[in-house]
């Protein structure tokens, strides 16, 4: 599964994207964020407050309870500040 990070999530993790295969127990976006938070110091910092993290699966917004099975690309990022 391809993971993409943006803004301060990207900066804290130290990379813009990576390919990872989370264990089968990781079913939802919320599970993924919790699992990633255990993958090292940068990840723990990026996901220290999971409630503010926004997510997209295959370039569409999803909620934290969305299932990630079959996702090609999951993006995790802070609340958006465009316009």
């Amino acid at each position, binding site marked *: 599964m391809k993971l993409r990070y943006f803004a301060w999530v990207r900066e804290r993790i130290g990379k813009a994207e990576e390919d990872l295969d989370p264990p089968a127990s990781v079913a939802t976006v919320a599970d993924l964020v919790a699992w990633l938070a255990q993958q090292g110091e940068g990840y723990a910092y990026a996901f220290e407050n999971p409630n503010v993290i926004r997510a997209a699966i295959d370039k569409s917004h999803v909620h934290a309870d969305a299932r990630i099975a079959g996702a090609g690309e999951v*993006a995790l990022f802070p609340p*958006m*500040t465009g316009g």
Partner: protein
Amino acid sequence: MNTTIRLQREPFDAALEARKLTGGRTDIGAVVTFTGVCRADEGGEPIAALTLEHYPGMAEAEIARHVEKAIARWPLLGVTVIHRFGRIAPGEDIVLVITASSHRQAAFAAAEFLMDYLKTRAPFWKQVEKRGGKSWVEAKASDDSAAERWSEPKPARRDAAQ
């Protein structure tokens, strides 16, 4: 329907884009042009520049989804959305929304709808450069509530006399 959605690093020409939308047509009676401009301050502190990061592919798709919603909701005759990314200095334009319709109400409402959604749903993130270094702009609750007022169905109004 004349629809243009563009993400670009370089500046845009709002007047030129408006002319492109209306050129050769006589059914358009109202054109609303909104330009978002980079201020020289953020949170009361001076800034040197903004840098806009975006999610290529999703940003275009998300803007297109909201343009489709606007077209379904109001009798529009043309829509242009241009959003810049990269480094933008104070005084430079950031975003352009143009809506065209036969009458002004639809053009005003659709432009405001599109801007409110661009602020909260389009995957862009602003970083500011201040004297003390770089920092990410925090999302504002007021932008969320501005976008939420467009969501349907609307809550039933209480009778003020009761």
